[in-house]
């Protein structure tokens, strides 16, 4: 696969918008291959945060003064931006959270209140701990049951087993769109459709998907969708929970406090309308606004070209890694995003990760918060490289050279 000078220019143009990519790590140019953990931030997002604190900072939804009005407008415009990008039916279905984990906990806590003992929730064996533990907490609180869909050796979900688990007791199917540790893309459209047949609601964990796939919430027809701002070029500490308004309306509030109330008295308190009902307290205002800017940035990209580029990086790296005889890749499905999880012979992933870091290559090692997958493959962890829109084939060449050197030292 040869890069055209045109695509090379496009990537260089994107790279120039990410100041951190010129950083030196241990005296070498940074090669950032840990995009599944968090993406780097473009200048527009960084500038927005700085500008907000320098010129716009005020609390929102309450002040009559101009600054507060402007901050409120900016915050609500960001919500609108995200809502239209994801094609939600209305802005009020977009709730700002702290991130994916916060969103799932909100649903487990609030939607969970509507569940009865013996009701069932289906998750998959490839879920992040964030999509396992909140349900386990709910299981002990409400005596519901968790059913786990197994995966095949390729890392793909066992759809037949999924269908066998679905029944009239299934109230929620909570599943990741894309596996964070393996990069496998789940057939969520089919999963959503089949779940709805038995009347189950569906929550999609989109932490790894919004940055790689174009999301159309109405077309997907999922009931909930959650993701984190920091993985989509936005700041940390902010994320989004999308929920269909008919569901959000019947769910009890998650947290009590300011902003989420309509009227408070000691006799009776009434709650605010959506989305504010689920946004208690002063939110991460600058986070929300800068997340809106991150979506402006995504909108400015040629998204399809970026997808092609990421896929090319994936195939190029897979070919290079497969040429090293002792390498074993986990998650071998063809339907993947730009994530490769692998091990080298008997070498501990921690050792490889440490030596790669000393050569300026940032990768993730360990169980990636998906211990059940590691148990499934009977390994302590993997080395995970995950590519973003600003990575290049040259960087992959340097990474492979650094990897070979590490293997040589460790063998």
């Amino acid at each position, binding site marked *: 696969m040869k890069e055209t000078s045109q695509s090379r220019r496009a990537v260089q143009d994107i790279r120039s918008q990410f100041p951190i990519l010129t950083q030196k790590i241990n005296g070498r140019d940074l090669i950032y291959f840990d995009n599944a953990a968090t993406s780097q931030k473009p200048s527009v997002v960084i500038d927005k945060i700085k500008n907000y604190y320098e010129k716009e900072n005020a609390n929102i939804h309450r002040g009559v003064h101009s600054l507060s009005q402007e901050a409120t407008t900016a915050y609500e415009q960001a919500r609108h931006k995200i809502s239209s990008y994801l094609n939600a039916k209305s802005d009020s279905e977009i709730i700002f959270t702290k991130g994916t984990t916060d969103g799932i906990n909100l649903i487990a806590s609030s939607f969970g209140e509507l569940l009865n003992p013996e009701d069932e929730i289906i998750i998959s064996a490839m879920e992040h701990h964030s999509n396992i533990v909140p349900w386990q907490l709910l299981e002990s609180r409400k005596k519901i049951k968790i059913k786990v869909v197994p995966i095949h050796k390729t890392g793909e979900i066992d759809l037949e087993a999924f269908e066998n688990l679905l029944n009239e007791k299934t109230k929620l199917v909570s599943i990741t769109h894309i596996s964070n540790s393996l990069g496998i893309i789940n057939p969520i459209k089919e999963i959503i459709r089949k779940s709805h047949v038995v009347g189950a609601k569906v929550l999609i964990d989109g932490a790894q998907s919004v940055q790689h796939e174009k999301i159309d919430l109405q077309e997907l027809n999922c009931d909930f969708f959650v993701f984190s701002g920091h993985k989509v070029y936005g700041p940390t500490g902010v994320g989004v929970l999308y929920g269909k308004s008919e569901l959000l309306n019947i769910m009890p509030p998650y947290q009590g406090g300011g902003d989420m109330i309509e009227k408070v008295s000691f006799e009776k308190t009434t709650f605010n309308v959506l989305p504010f009902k689920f946004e208690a307290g002063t939110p991460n205002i600058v986070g929300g606004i800068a997340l809106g800017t991150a979506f402006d940035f995504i909108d400015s990209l040629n998204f399809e070209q970026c997808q092609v580029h990421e896929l090319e990086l994936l195939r190029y790296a897979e070919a290079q890694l497969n040429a090293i005889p002792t390498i074993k890749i986990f998650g071998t499905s063809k339907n993947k995003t730009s994530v490769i999880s692998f091990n080298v012979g008997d070498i501990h992933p*921690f050792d490889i990760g*440490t*030596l790669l870091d000393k050569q300026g290559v940032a990768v993730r090692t360990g169980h990636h918060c998906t211990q059940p997958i590691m148990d499934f493959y009977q390994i*302590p962890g993997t080395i995970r490289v995950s590519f973003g829109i600003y990575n290049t084939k040259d960087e992959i060449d340097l990474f492979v050279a650094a990897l070979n050197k590490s293997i040589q*030292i*460790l063998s």
Partner: protein
Amino acid sequence: MNYTEKQNAIIEDFSLFDDWMEKYELIIDLGKEIEMIPNQDKRDEQLIEGCQSRVWLKSNYKDGKMFYFADSDAIITKGIISLLIKVMNGEEPKTIAKEDLFFIKEIGLQEHLSPTRANGLVEMVKRMKLDAIKNY
């Protein structure tokens, strides 16, 4: 050599290398030398679970001195353990409990002993000192 001298000797060994990869090659060689706990002798109570790598530690007190045996599933972790053992073995519990372990920082390995590294080493050093205190 006393506790301080042993640490200074390690610092000197590492000062011969400018390049990080060479320093790590030395650590890896040390990891291969370490006196390990054979697999069949490993006990659950010796295991220190890190997020990334795991460490086993066994402490012995003999004739007024401390002796440690350890192992890890990661070779770099093992190499660092071997340095710690070199310094601490054969020392009186009082020395281990009270004296500073300054060489780790001096040779630039403090990142391995930061809580975020999650390799079980922080907990191991704590346990080595606690075991010494028990005999102090």
